[in-house]
């Protein structure tokens, strides 16, 4: 067997973007991310690509299982990815990060929110904001509505557990008493135990931290059976989605989504739906889109497709450089870069700026609420 670092050969070639996202798992929560990557790469290539070549894309199915995910990473590495987008879950990212980065590729996730990934590898970046800020916003909303006690129902997975922790911290900091916390497994037959336990504690407000896919029956039960309303039931970003329950049950329910401009967001959602009309929830699609765009911009700034070189420019193009010019779309930013200007990309998910530990800061949130037809829009 022979050996040697391969990156040199990659430098000159086109930027190869691999994406490892769930196509078959997590109740479809990852499907919007798959489309987001497609949209991003199409836009980049429509605008002339990176360093004179078209960006090549290979999407693979991460499934929800590390065995198959590891295989999928193998195929991305063999293919020669410079940038790998994903994985969807924080847990899986932790499982594959060493494999990806060992090959010299850069890993950028648009959906990892777990704080335990902070600083795990110099080649690992993420564009998803940590859920702590969203938790603080939710707690603030609860206080604004005049509730001094709250209960939490959280999905029992990496995302849900981390969010729940943040939520409890935010509530405690605000002085809101958390009177009940319940977790549910996504594979359980029903969530009545959790709903009943929470209701039994008679909280003034309830926060639902779960994917839209699993929340329908809980909302039906909380609103329809137990009399909670849009004034005391709150939703997380992933809970905002399309439901098949009676729209009157959803009416007025609120939650926060990251993103600077709701109009841009709505425009973006349309593009995603054009790719895949079955999408039910758009959580983390924007940040995944940003992950692709910002790494492409970094590749332009680095004038190289090599993972390490791109990584070195990630902070700069996100606004880390002095005197950079703000830009909001790939074409705009790429033109600026071509003109030799330093750029500060502000993406779909907010200000987007990488801190020294490669986590993202500067996130803006908008409050969304359901209308009487079961779709949600920015709350007035």
């Amino acid at each position, binding site marked *: 067997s022979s050996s040697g670092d391969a990156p040199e050969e990659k430098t000159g070639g086109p930027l190869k973007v691999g994406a490892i996202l769930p196509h078959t*798992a*997590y*109740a*479809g*929560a990852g499907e919007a991310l798959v489309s987001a990557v497609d949209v991003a790469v199409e836009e980049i290539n429509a605008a002339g690509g990176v360093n004179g070549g078209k960006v090549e894309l290979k999407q693979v199915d991460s499934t929800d299982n590390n065995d198959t995910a590891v295989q999928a990473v193998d195929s991305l590495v063999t293919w020669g990815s410079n940038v790998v987008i994903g994985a969807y879950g924080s847990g899986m990212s932790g499982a594959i990060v060493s494999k990806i980065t060992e090959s010299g590729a850069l890993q950028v996730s648009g959906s990892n929110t777990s704080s335990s990934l902070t600083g795990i590898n110099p080649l690992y970046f993420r564009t998803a904001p*940590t859920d*702590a*800020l969203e938790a603080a*916003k939710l*707690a*603030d909303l609860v*206080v*604004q509505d*005049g*509730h*001094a006690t709250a209960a939490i129902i959280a999905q*029992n997975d990496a995302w849900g557990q981390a969010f729940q922790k*943040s939520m409890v911290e935010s509530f*405690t*900091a*605000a*002085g*809101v*008493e958390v*009177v009940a916390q*319940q*977790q*549910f*497994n996504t*594979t*359980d*037959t*029903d*969530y*009545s*135990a959790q709903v*009943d*336990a929470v*209701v*039994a*504690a*008679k909280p003034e407000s309830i926060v639902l931290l779960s994917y*839209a*896919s*699993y929340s*329908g*029956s809980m909302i*039906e039960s909380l609103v*329809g*059976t*137990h009399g909670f309303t849009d004034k005391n039931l709150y939703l997380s970003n992933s809970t905002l989605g399309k*439901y*098949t*329950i*009676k729209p009157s049950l959803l009416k007025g329910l609120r939650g926060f989504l990251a993103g600077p401009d709701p109009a841009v967001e709505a425009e973006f959602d349309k593009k995603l739906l054009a790719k895949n009309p*079955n999408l*039910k929830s758009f959580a983390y699609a924007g940040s995944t889109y940003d992950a692709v765009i910002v790494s492409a911009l970094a590749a332009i700034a680095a004038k190289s497709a090599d993972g390490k070189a791109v990584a070195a420019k990630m902070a700069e193009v996100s606004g880390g450089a002095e005197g950079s010019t703000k830009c909001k779309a790939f074409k705009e930013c790429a033109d600026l870069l071509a003109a030799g200007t330093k750029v500060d990309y502000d993406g779909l998910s907010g*200000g987007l700026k990488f801190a020294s530990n490669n986590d993202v*800061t*500067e996130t803006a949130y908008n409050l969304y609420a359901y209308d009487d037809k079961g779709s949600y829009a920015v709350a007035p």
Partner: protein
Amino acid sequence: MTPSKAIRWLLAVLALACVLALPSPAAAAPADEWGFRGLLRDGEKQPVSGAAVQVKDGDTVVGSDTTDDKGRWEIIPVPGPGTYTLTIDTTAASGHFAGDEYEVDKELVESPTTLPVLNVVVSTTESSQQVASFTDRLAQRAVSGFNLGLLIAIAAIGLSLVFGTSRFTNFAHGESVTFGGLTGFVLAHVLGLPLLLAAAVATVLGGFFGYAQDVAFWRPLRRRGVSLITLMIASIGISMAIRSLMQFSFGSASRGMTEESWGTVTLGPVVMPATSYAGMGISIVVLAGVGLWLKHGRIGKATRAIAGNTALAATSGVAVDKITRIVWVLAGALAALSGVLLGVFNQVSFDMGFNLLLLMFAGVILGGLGTSFGTLAGSIVVGLCTEILVLWIPADMKYVGGLAVLVIVLLVRPQGIFGRRERIG
């Protein structure tokens, strides 16, 4: 105000101060308006209205507000990050707080994980919170458990029957449940049929689905004389194939079965949707019917005969293939019905049946494999334990309750509740 109340006030405020004093990582905060927002509650957790709240920077008052009828106050903006003194004067407030005044220092910090607006909820007591009584919760859990038990039973009876005739553990049975759920969804939600009609049609289609499985897989495999373990492994493959196919056509998301609602029924402390009671009623009727039919009907006896000794049953003139097919149809139909009920109870998704499979197994085994009333009893025990034990164990481990009871019962009765020991020799 009594001294003890005053102490509690003080403690609450101190606790708050401690929490706020925690060091937070400094970083750029989103540029926004800085300020304070809070609530004021009394010892009974009732809002205190009309209290005066002030924020002072040193001796300068930077803002003030009066609590509203919900006890809310808001002082925004204040100049920016820094330490402020917050005072609450309840002299003019409602309730028996008149004359008291409180003061505490608060710090506004810049951090990527906190907001520029600081929430300050002040309440005089930690937990005078009203909670539902234990017996009320027990009642609610017991009814839910019974409901779940019936659901498991109706799904598991098919599993038990198939085991009864073919002697193999069908890991693909969950997919028949899913089939019912998804069909029900299409009928009720997409085509808009009334729920009961949808359930009936889905059950019939489920029968066809069972039939199709037998024709497509099991009969050919039986013909080849494949061993039971091998059949079991084949069922794992079939389960995976059908499940993925359903995912392919239905998508990965879970969805509500129907928008139809029959309202809520409150029986004492137990609050449940009327549909759940209807589902329980249907389950009981169907289960009793099937159970009696199996015990006393000819086909029921034939299935048990085939289970015990297929070759001998054939030489006694039992049409093994035909009976087996009837069993598959029945198993498919019952599974589909349970899928619809489960969909109404919770939601439908491509893996709903697969997720129920383990509980079905537990029910079947607990009752003693191959006996239909055993399956019913076992399933209800599993359902009750799963739902009731969450009063003591964390709800995210709720299956542990149902599964643990399985293990414990088998320790005492290795043959299951209704199973019989074999004679040796």
